[in-house]
């Protein structure tokens, strides 16, 4: 036997975990300690390359890592203990899976010989997280640990990104084994996502685009995930073709909101022009989006007259909800690059002047218009004011879930990708505050704002304490309507105005709460208060909780009523009680 005691690659499992993080360039780790991860925490204590951000609840660690990942394009890394630590991660893992966000989550596990014994803080972590991860592993041998961890980073970040879990029993953390730095054969040969699009399909797509009379580009989060180059190529494609472009909630910022071909967001609360353009188009180019039910409305009436091109890295997204004519499997940026090249070489941009004229008539309906009010702050107005106040700042926005999220998407203009972090697929209330922490950790000097609702913000409120501890000056801007507004809106529209448990009873005094946490509390009650308070919020270099009192009963329009098609939108000005009742007929009548 050779003496291995001086081999630098001999180390404990716990040391391997920290070494792996360093070797993958991880600078920040979000976590919460417990018995089953103490050996790893001991290693963290003895080094300074990876900064550990201690949250107040494991869910917060998960969402913070999501915000970190979405704003940087790098994987977010989480460390939690066994049992309750792992189960508290289920929501952020599912959230990351739905929104294709790369997360590497390391969970502690009870020692291998106790697995299956109902040991203290034991749970079947790989069993519980199997359906909410892209892949997961239980490592039983310290000599497999390095390979599994490297593979975990690879799987999380390649193809369609997503969350992975590596479950490491405590005895494996203590055991000594051989580490190796990342290398090619760490990767499952069975996992080789396709990046480059098929050339013949791309030609077909270009021919379709060149022959279009009423085209539209519909882009999604996949363009953002692909990296900044993809957004650049998307912009160039819009420039070269002259086509109108809309985007999903997840895709905002890939094309600038001030761009002249921008139609606004599409879908249930999208603009009238975006949805009408989708409905009446003859050629649709979908890039990195997945025709989800909040986008399509009723599927049998979705864009009935169009030929559809679909670029997606995940073959299972193709033909899942909507049949497409030209599927192209590959990375959004890679395929857009090839498509552009072929288009420029072989195609001429079609004349779509009359199509733009038609779009102009839809735009003229001004579907985001709302009635001004001098006495109470309307939520739409508050977002517009916030947007104005942040101009010129290096701004990142996260949101919670509800009406405020939709108003943020409608009224806050995004010029760049990676600036907008929201829970789209899962719709997780409580996402925005910890996500903002994660963003701020990655961008210390930027302005990071969580546009929140009074109900959502209470779900992960405790992370204010994390913000204070790590001097993360996030701004939590609560559109406080004293309701679970989105729930109330649906109860009004669909359940006979019976407002069952949607009133935010016994709200805390947010200003005092901020004070208790050691943050800055601000409040605006009248429209006239907004400018000054916003200015103060932005200028203080500490975490701020901003209680913005808005009209309690405002509803979010435009809206595609349930089971209706894109061309049956309800616009705000037309959303009188009678019109709304008629639009939602089939549901319960409105009171």
């Amino acid at each position: 036997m050779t003496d291995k005691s001086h081999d630098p690659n001999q180390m404990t499992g716990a040391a391997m975990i920290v070494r792996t993080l360093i070797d993958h360039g991880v600078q920040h780790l979000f976590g919460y300690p417990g018995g089953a991860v103490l050996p790893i925490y001991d290693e963290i204590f003895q080094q300074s390359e990876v900064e550990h951000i201690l949250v107040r609840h494991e869910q917060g660690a998960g969402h913070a890592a999501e915000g970190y990942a979405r704003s940087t394009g790098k994987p977010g890394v989480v460390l939690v203990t066994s049992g309750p630590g792992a189960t508290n991660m289920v929501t952020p893992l599912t959230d990351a899976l739905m929104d294709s966000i790369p997360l590497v989550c390391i969970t502690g596990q009870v020692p291998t010989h106790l697995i299956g014994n109902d040991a203290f803080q034991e749970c079947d972590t790989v069993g519980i997280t199997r359906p909410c991860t892209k892949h997961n592993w239980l490592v039983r041998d310290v000599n497999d640990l390095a390979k599994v961890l490297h593979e975990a980073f690879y799987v999380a970040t390649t193809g369609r990104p997503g969350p992975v879990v590596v479950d490491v029993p405590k005895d494996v953390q203590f055991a000594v084994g051989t580490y190796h730095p990342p290398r090619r054969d760490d990767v499952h040969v069975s996992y080789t996502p396709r990046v480059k699009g098929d050339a013949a399909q791309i030609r077909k797509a270009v021919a379709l685009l060149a022959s279009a009379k009423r085209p539209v580009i519909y882009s999604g989060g996949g363009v953002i995930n692909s990296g900044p180059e993809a957004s650049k190529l998307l912009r160039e494609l819009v420039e070269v073709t002259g086509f109108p472009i809309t985007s999903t909630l997840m895709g905002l910022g890939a094309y600038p909101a001030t761009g002249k071909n921008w139609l606004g967001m599409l879908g249930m609360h999208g603009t009238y022009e975006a949805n009408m353009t989708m409905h009446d188009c003859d050629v649709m180019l979908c890039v990195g989006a997945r025709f989800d039910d909040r986008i399509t409305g009723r599927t049998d009436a979705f864009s009935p007259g169009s030929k559809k091109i679909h670029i997606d890295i995940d073959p299972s997204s193709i033909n899942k909800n909507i049949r497409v004519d030209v599927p192209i499997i590959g990375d959004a940026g890679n395929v857009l690059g090839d498509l552009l090249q072929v288009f420029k070489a072989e195609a001429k941009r079609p004349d779509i002047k009359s199509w733009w004229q038609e779009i102009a008539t839809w735009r003229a309906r001004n579907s985001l218009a709302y009635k001004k009010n001098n006495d109470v702050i309307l939520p739409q107005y508050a977002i517009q004011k916030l947007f104005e106040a942040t101009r010129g700042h290096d701004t990142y926005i996260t949101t919670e879930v509800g009406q405020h999220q939709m108003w943020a998407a409608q009224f806050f203009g995004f010029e760049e990708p990676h600036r907008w972090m929201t829970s789209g697929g899962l719709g997780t209330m409580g996402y925005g505050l910890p996500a903002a922490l994660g963003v701020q950790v990655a961008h210390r000097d930027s302005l990071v704002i969580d546009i929140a609702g009074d109900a959502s913000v209470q779900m992960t409120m405790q992370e204010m304490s994390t913000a204070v501890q790590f001097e993360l000056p996030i701004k939590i801007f609560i559109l406080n309507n004293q309701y679970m507004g989105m729930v109330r809106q649906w109860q009004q529209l669909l359940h006979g105005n019976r407002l069952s448990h949607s009133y935010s009873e016994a709200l805390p005094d947010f200003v005092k709460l901020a004070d208790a946490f050691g943050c800055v509390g601000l409040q605006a009650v009248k429209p006239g208060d907004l400018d000054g308070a916003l200015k103060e919020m932005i200028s203080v270099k500490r975490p701020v909780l901003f209680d913005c009192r808005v009209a309690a009963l405002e509803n979010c329009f435009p809206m595609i009523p349930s089971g209706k098609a894109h061309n049956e939108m309800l616009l705000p000005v037309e959303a009188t009680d009678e019109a709304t009742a008629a639009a939602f007929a089939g549901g319960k009548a409105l009171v």
Partner: protein
Amino acid sequence: MNQPASAYFLEERHDPNETHTLSVLVQNEPGVLARVIGLFSGRGYNIESLTVSETESQKHLSRITIVTTGTPMVIEQIKHQLDRMVPVYRVVDMTITGRSIERELAMVKVRGGGDNRVEALRLADAFRARVIDATTESFVFEITGNSSKINQFIDLMRPLGLVEVSRTGVAAIGRGPEGM
């Protein structure tokens, strides 16, 4: 169109269902079968039959054969969903390639005497089923073939004293010299 109060589009499509046999080559690692089954239950797909066994022990490869039913769009989804799983190497739709052989093995226990016993033996012979266990009042037959042949045999045994059946589920392989 009338539908109850929901923001989801609730009407189902009514495309006709098809039955497909899928061969799935997977890395034989802990939990891989749970992943495949979890995919089917989690997404509401049907499993008519599922067989699995390691087929190349040196490479740690297992082959799973799944018989499933669904609309053409659902079958396409199932294949893609399987294919994108990390430990899955390949998914081949044996029904689409149309050049595959499917076999199942069943052991069929029949109890009785007199004419029924004679008739059971005679039918077993016609179906090329072998007797693999016998007592004075019972037989266990072993029969291989495609599922419909086995179904037919079982139906014939029912009135003759069928006690119980154990089936392996379908295994499938392509015709010709090429592998999957």
